[in-house]
């Protein structure tokens, strides 16, 4: 038994060391956007998916905290709002992304629910045990976390690729402005197909969105919808397609700041078909915050 236990202990220690390494990589790569918490000085918050990331911290002088994260779903934003309320933030305004795709069922499939769990509380779960597993065990033992595993794998593949090929140049040419128009069209179409491959909006996301609206109404929080700018190519492909988050917000008496068409002839402001680059972000933040 002693020999067996000794082997098990050695093996466990190796596993723990591996887990620690993965934990730090996961913190740097996977949980990057979730390592920050707003301080209580902030009164307004931007809740958005990756579209809101271009605004960086430009709103901070106006006490606006950018709580956006890539691949964020309405469910994740709902969690964040509840987190702010539960932690007694004095919320005056919420800038909420109401882009055409925001209620797409695609976002149920690819959301940040495993990351935004950081902002969740036990009431969301069937039991304390479920909360413990999802909130703490998967977080501190990322070797059990399937998404972290996927990220680590991708990183390793990228590392091997970069050793074998010149990957850097490949990335440079990805910037929107450097692409041929035919490639832009292709990318725009691909983006459209990902986000609008479903006939109807997601019931779950719509319900969560309505819950957010009701929370804001009940707490007298000013909810402002924001439609982020899209590139010319994507607007063309998109046509009238929308899952209608902006209409829901308007129907509930909240305003919508529609910047969708603002940069239609400004390809140099875009990183890709629907994301602004740093420069575009600065221009948009001026429009959003200085003209308040």
């Amino acid at each position, binding site marked *: *038994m002693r*020999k*067996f236990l000794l*082997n098990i202990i050695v093996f466990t220690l190796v596993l723990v060391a591996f887990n620690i390494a993965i934990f730090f990589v996961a913190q740097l790569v996977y949980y990057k956007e979730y390592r920050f918490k707003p301080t209580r000085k902030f009164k307004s918050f931007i809740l958005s998916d990756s579209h809101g990331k271009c605004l960086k911290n430009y709103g901070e002088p106006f006490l606006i905290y950018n709580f956006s994260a890539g691949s964020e779903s309405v469910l994740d934003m709902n969690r964040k709002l509840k987190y702010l309320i539960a932690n007694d933030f004095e919320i005056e305004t919420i800038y909420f992304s109401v882009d055409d795709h925001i209620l797409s069922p695609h976002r149920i499939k690819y959301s940040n629910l495993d990351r935004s769990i950081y902002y969740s509380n036990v009431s969301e779960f069937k039991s304390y045990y479920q909360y413990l*597993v999802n909130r703490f*065990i*998967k977080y501190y*033992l990322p*070797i*059990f976390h*399937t*998404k972290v*595993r*996927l990220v*680590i*794998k991708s990183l*390793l593949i990228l590392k091997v690729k970069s050793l074998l090929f010149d990957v850097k140049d490949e990335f440079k040419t990805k910037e929107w402005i450097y692409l041929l128009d035919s490639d832009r069209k292709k990318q725009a179409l691909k983006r459209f197909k990902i986000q609008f491959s479903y006939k109807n909006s997601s019931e779950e996301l719509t319900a969560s969105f309505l819950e957010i609206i009701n929370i804001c109404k009940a707490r007298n929080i000013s909810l402002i919808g924001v439609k982020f700018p899209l590139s010319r190519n994507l607007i063309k492909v998109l046509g009238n397609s929308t899952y209608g988050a902006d209409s829901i917000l308007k129907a509930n008496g909240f305003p919508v700041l529609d910047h969708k068409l603002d940069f239609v002839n400004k390809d140099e402001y875009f990183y890709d078909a629907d994301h602004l680059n740093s420069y575009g972000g600065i221009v948009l933040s001026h429009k959003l915050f200085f003209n308040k």
Partner: protein
Amino acid sequence: MLFNSIDFAFFLPIVFVLYWFISPNNVKYQNLLIVIASYFFYGMWDWRFLFLILFSSLVDFTVGLALLNQEDWRKRKLLLWASIFINLGILGVFKYYNFFVQNFVDAFSFFGKEIEIRSINIILPVGISFYTFQTLSYGFDVYKKKLIPTKSFIDFSAFVSFFPQLVAGPIERATHLLPQFYKKRTFNYELASDGLRQMLWGFFKKIVIADNCANLANQIFDNYTEYPGSALFLGALFFTFQIYGDFSGYSDIAIGCARLFGFDLMQNFNFPYFSRDIAEFWRRWHISLSTWFRDYLYIPLGGSKGSLWMKIRNTFIIFIVSGFWHGANWTFITWGALNALYFLPLLLTQRNRINLDGIAQGKLIPKFKDFIAMLFTFILTVIAWIFFRSQSMHQAIEILNRIFSASLFSNPQLMDVRHTYLVMFLILVFIVFEWLGREGKYGFSFVMKLKQKWMRWVFYCFLLLIIYLYGYQGEAIEFIYFQF
């Protein structure tokens, strides 16, 4: 609780420590701990299932005790029938009620008479067929006086609910497993470390092979109308490896896990895809169920003795019942009947026992004749799995129609070609490992032939890394056989 879950990663070490350190010399406490742990393990699915397993255990324990003091054969028979009636009754209600009701209604409707019988919405308790057959074997063996019934309900409950093999086998015979609960268990280093090795291999089969294949097979089978014959054949191939990886993977984890607690479970799979004929395949596939049916159904029916008609009848009965055991659907029954058709020519020409030893014993490369026979048997099996996997007979026939058409030679037009190639590569690695280990009890046992310890560790680390990097990335998938 799934083996491939975080829950189990915590559950197993805790039970292991309690088992060997709290009461290492007290069999009673160890058995009680096994019962508690097993009920907890099973209750994690749905605590209501516990009443069913408890009831089933109580029935057979009582029947066993009643048989102990009963010498009158008529009364003994009555007791045995009571056990069979109750066990199969539970199985019938939970698993087959809706199937019979639907077919009854359809039959009446066929003759122009519309009747209305309500189907009931019942959750199928996980692994019900497995523990029901295990308790039935106890009743049979006590009735035949092959086994002295236990007087300890704890020992009996531990036998019925032993968590490593509770939900998906191997279906243990009472004569083999129950006596192990009476004996004092001493920790055996070789047994335990071999158990861990077998568990590792089981996890590889499940998480890397079965779950990745499941992803592709599901995609193809669920959208079968959109794919040409070539893709559907690939889908059937992926399912062939999925079901093997899934089920034999579970068995490997179960057997390995039982070894950690000093128990020896029977081998359930013996490299079935290396079989050279269907008879050999059935001696190597789900051995615990095949031998169960052989001993408690086929032989009592007369087996392969008797007239030609008897042989044919018995073969069909055992295969069809085996198919029906898997699920209440005509697809399973057809799968069983198709295997009977494969098997029958071998039985009638008395060639069903020509391949008793393993293929290419002591050699690396098989004879060409053996290789062709193996390939032919494998293809027959792949075709049969199409029925097993399909949701309906219509789907299975449509898939076969497409496979046996010119589109078999067309471009498969799969969505994610890179991922498909990757899975194919992983299957190839899997086959190579299985081939190297085919003379042992499980594929990965070949590493024990390596003399240097560090070389063995290289293989362990390699397998762990593959599991980590190429294990299925979605949520943990339940084992297929849980539904049976």
